[in-house]
């Protein structure tokens, strides 16, 4: 009797394999008409933030629990505008590339939609986030989804997640051991610290610039003494 009681207690106390979401966010590319003549020209290739996210998804698929799911959030308007500029259909191309890697893009058009997508309660429909990674333009104070896409050298207000907006992301949406990484430039100089203090989870970010030009997972730009920080 004692044995069965202890067995039942153990079974209750044992953690059940709960599903979690791994969120990858891809920001949008700049327009070449704005960037072509700049000294530091961005986004010669349209798919920097797409390819790196897909590659990361392939890496994560090897390590994540079978119950976990990769959720790929893509900022749509910038790809539509770049498609118009280059006379190509980049949304179709990125969907095809995602399909090959076994992930489907979920589009968002502004930061309000992103905040809604990041709102989780741990239910089966909205599982908590165990990992979040961002690929896109940023500076030390914000993520800029449409940098140099609608206005030259800047981003529009509804399309910027500024450190002052971070209180709209709840720490309860994340698991207690969630890991967050921002692969944008300069995130480790302030954004990461504000994220940790407001959202309550550590975020690794770059001190200095990140470089997507070689393809794959972005690296720290060489020669500037950059590092990763949280």
């Amino acid at each position, binding site marked *: 009797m004692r044995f069965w009681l202890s067995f039942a207690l153990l079974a209750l106390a044992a953690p059940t394999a709960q599903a979690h979401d791994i969120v990858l966010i891809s920001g949008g590319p700049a327009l070449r008409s704005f960037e072509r003549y700049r000294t530091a020209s961005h986004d010669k290739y349209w798919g920097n933030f797409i390819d790196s996210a897909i590659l990361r998804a392939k890496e994560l698929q090897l390590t994540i629990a079978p119950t976990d799911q990769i959720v790929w959030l893509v900022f749509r308007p910038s790809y539509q505008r770049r498609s118009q500029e280059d006379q190509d259909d980049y949304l179709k191309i990125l969907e095809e590339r995602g399909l090959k890697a076994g992930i489907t893009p979920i589009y968002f058009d502004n930061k309000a939609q992103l905040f809604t997508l990041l709102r989780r309660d741990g239910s089966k429909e909205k599982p908590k986030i165990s990992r979040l990674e961002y690929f896109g333009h940023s500076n030390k104070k914000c993520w800029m989804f449409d940098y140099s896409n609608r206005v030259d050298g800047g981003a529009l207000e509804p399309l*910027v997640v500024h450190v002052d907006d971070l209180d709209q992301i709840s720490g309860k949406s994340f698991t207690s051991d969630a890991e967050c990484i921002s692969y944008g430039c300069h995130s480790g100089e302030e954004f990461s*610290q504000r994220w940790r203090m407001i959202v309550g989870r550590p975020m690794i970010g770059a*001190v200095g610039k990140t470089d997507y030009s070689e393809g794959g997972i972005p690296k720290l730009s060489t020669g500037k003494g950059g590092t990763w920080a949280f």
Partner: protein
Amino acid sequence: MGLLATFVLITLLPCLCFAPPLPLRSSSASSTNPATSLVTEPTPEEKVPAEESEEEVRPPITEKVMRATLRAAHTPAKHGRTDGPYLIAQRTIVEDYCGWGWVRKENQSWRQATWIAIEGTPNLCPTPHAFLPKPEDDKNQQYRFYGEFAPYRAYEPQADMWVDVFILKGFMSMGPAEPIRRAPPAQASSRPNRFAERGANMLKP
């Protein structure tokens, strides 16, 4: 006889080969035609016909030549919807700074001007520099801007500033102007960064 013929050939051939050149037509004409030789050559002043000399000669003004050779001269004089109220706008380029330039009302000075970013209106009016080879080709050009301010602002990442956005419906070119000696807004709009001062937690590379 044979010797005589050879002697004759030797003496006559050089005379034939080295005959003096034929006189040129002009020189022969001037020398042979007594009528033309009597006429003295006219001086440059006299070459101009009488009726042309009376006309006022107006050489192009240096400023006009300069304007015509500017690349910005290729922007259309007028484009899009150009009716209703307008703003005076001057293209100003600041390296690594978001935005297009300054705008002010007609009766205001540049000190009261506002720094803006602009968005063109699809199928109605693109930005003026869209007509030029490079975006900076219309630097210090002045325009009349027709349109309205957007309900949203643009983020300037270098200065951490929010910049007003003007949605362009039409414009009129007003030509080059003196540069505006005024720096764009630079004070940070967000709260002071007390978190960054603590220093980041560096990860070992």
